[in-house]
């Protein structure tokens, strides 16, 4: 029993840290632009594909690459996706910065559609096997099986999150981003380069999302052009649960969501006498999303903003 619990806890931590990496992108973009970036799930997907392409280009034979090469591939892939993120913002969202709030959202739906289809055209719609980025060994922790892949994902995600947290709180770039997210007009008046801040966010978000994608693909050993849709939605749920706009909130929300999901998957069939099976896991996530938005739209760590002040009015 203890073994099962430990194993489930590790499952939850693994999937939670991947959710967290993606949720951070949603939350940062929302913090700065007050926009839901529907195309963010696609950055997650692109991460896996970029890593795969770079890996096959560098070394034809996947699988016997050394640790250093794998790390280099990882960084190259996330940076490529980060640049794609910046480019997408420039082309598809920047022209809409002064229009109403729904326009960039609709545009991001278009971006999402285009990216998924583009990958489908290039790589084919079928799922592709993905090489593990971590040597796979199994450990026995108090009766539960934990894989080295899980531990690697946990460590990689934690390092990335700590790095982001330090960057945002300690660096000059972080100050710019925080200032813009506090109030764009004021930041602009103070001479802060708003475009730079937005570009930074659209770089950092996709970088983390892509990292999540690579970790996810090496965890499940598979990637597909549509893998970003549901995961993206769940990460978004996590961001809202933690309080959208709040970076620690996104991490907290991601882990809570992952634990609820894992517990729900394990307990749903038992609690309902087999009436509701594990296939309702996704329903659980969406139900949480809707409940949070209805009961506490600001999320757990979000600032208790009133509904009125959240409405973004155009400045004339």
């Amino acid at each position: 029993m203890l073994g099962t619990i430990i194993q489930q806890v590790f499952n939850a931590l693994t999937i939670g840290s991947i959710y967290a990496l993606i949720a951070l992108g949603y939350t940062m973009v929302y913090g700065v632009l007050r926009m839901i970036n529907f195309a963010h799930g696609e950055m997650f997907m692109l991460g896996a594909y970029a890593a795969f392409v770079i890996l096959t280009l560098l070394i034809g034979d996947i699988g016997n690459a050394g640790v250093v090469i794998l790390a280099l591939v990882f960084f190259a892939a996330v940076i490529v996706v980060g640049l794609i993120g910046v480019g997408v913002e420039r082309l598809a969202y920047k022209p809409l910065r002064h229009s109403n709030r729904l326009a960039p959202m609709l545009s991001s739906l278009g971006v999402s559609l285009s990216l998924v289809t583009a990958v489908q055209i290039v790589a084919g719609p079928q799922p592709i096997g993905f090489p593990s980025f971590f040597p796979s060994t199994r450990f026995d922790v108090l009766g539960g099986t934990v894989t080295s892949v899980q531990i690697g994902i946990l460590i990689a995600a934690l390092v990335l999150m700590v790095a982001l947290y330090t960057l945002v709180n300690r660096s000059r770039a972080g100050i710019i981003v925080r200032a813009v997210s506090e109030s764009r007009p004021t930041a602009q008046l103070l001479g802060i380069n708003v475009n730079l801040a937005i570009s930074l966010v659209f770089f950092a978000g996709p970088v983390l999302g892509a990292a999540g994608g690579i970790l996810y693909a090496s965890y499940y050993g598979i990637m597909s052009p549509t893998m970003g849709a549901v995961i993206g939605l769940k990460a978004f749920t996590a961001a809202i649960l933690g309080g959208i706009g709040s970076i620690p909130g996104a991490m907290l929300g991601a882990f809570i969501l992952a634990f609820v999901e894992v517990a729900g998957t394990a307990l749903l069939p038992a609690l309902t006498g087999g009436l509701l099976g594990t296939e309702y896991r996704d329903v659980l996530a969406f139900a949480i999303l809707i409940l949070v938005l209805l009961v506490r739209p600001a999320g757990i760590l979000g600032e208790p903003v009133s509904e009125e002040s959240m409405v973004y009015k155009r400045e004339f």
Partner: protein
Amino acid sequence: MSSIDTSVPVSTGGSKVLAWLVVLAALALLVATPFLPNYYVRVVNGLLIYILLGIGLNIVVGYAGLLDLGFVAFYAVGAYTYALLASPQLDLHLPFLLIVVIAAGLGLMAGILLGIPVLKLRGDYLAIVTLGFGEIIRIIVNNVDWLTGGPKGIARLDKASVAGIELARPVEIYWLLLVCVVVIGTLVWRMERSILGKAWAAIREDQDAARGIGINTTVAKLTAFATSAMIGSIAGVIFAASQRFVSPESFALQESVLIVLMIVVGGIGNILGVIVGAAILILMPEVLREFAEWRVLFLGLLMIVLIILRPGGMIPRTFGPDKLIRRLFSR
């Protein structure tokens, strides 16, 4: 959705000819359809169903300015109502018109059910909640095997019949759809121009101001959700009756996005725009049949370009059916 000036300067001389050309082409298509081979009739039927769905969703998205990304759930409600009440699944075989009434009622209820909790939400949060709602409905339909047949769906649905006339062949469904589109389209257009429509527009432009001048935003929003859901549900019944087969595949998130896309491309908050948008998005894939996989990419890019260059859509909001008629008969 609004706040962008969508009126474009139009010269009256050439555009009158253009208006006549477009209207005559549309009429010619409608008259010619019954004589075309079945395949083309089915394409036109698909177009008409999407026009119906677009007219329904446009009430919420275009008139009231509430982005609803879960519209397909109501479509599913209607389709599965027909599938359950007129098939061997539960061994029920109710008459078509009765099911239309039941489905309209269920759609209405579903619309209010979704509407009540999201009354307080705006813009992006609303979009996400409705999206979640749509996905929940789809997952449930996919998994309640004993009732809906799960992913396999329900087959062998009854043929629809109205007053003893069987409606099963594509041409018959075509007439049914055409009547529905014309009747519902006219009703919705009248609603748009009624005091309720003005209330919706006020909510769209500025909700606080609307409440300030005494508009009951709760009632207006719920009416929008309910009416739109009802139309979606009716479209679902006709869809099920024409396919005589339903499965969860038809109600994926992409369908909701496609309908929103139709509205955005054609013209937000304008019935003429919905028709144009549906025509572009439904007929284009047929024309571009050889480039099967490229057409979705093209759609996505088109969406981005249109939102940036023509945020109001192809047809401006101000150019409604009344303007069109006036344009046609202007001197």
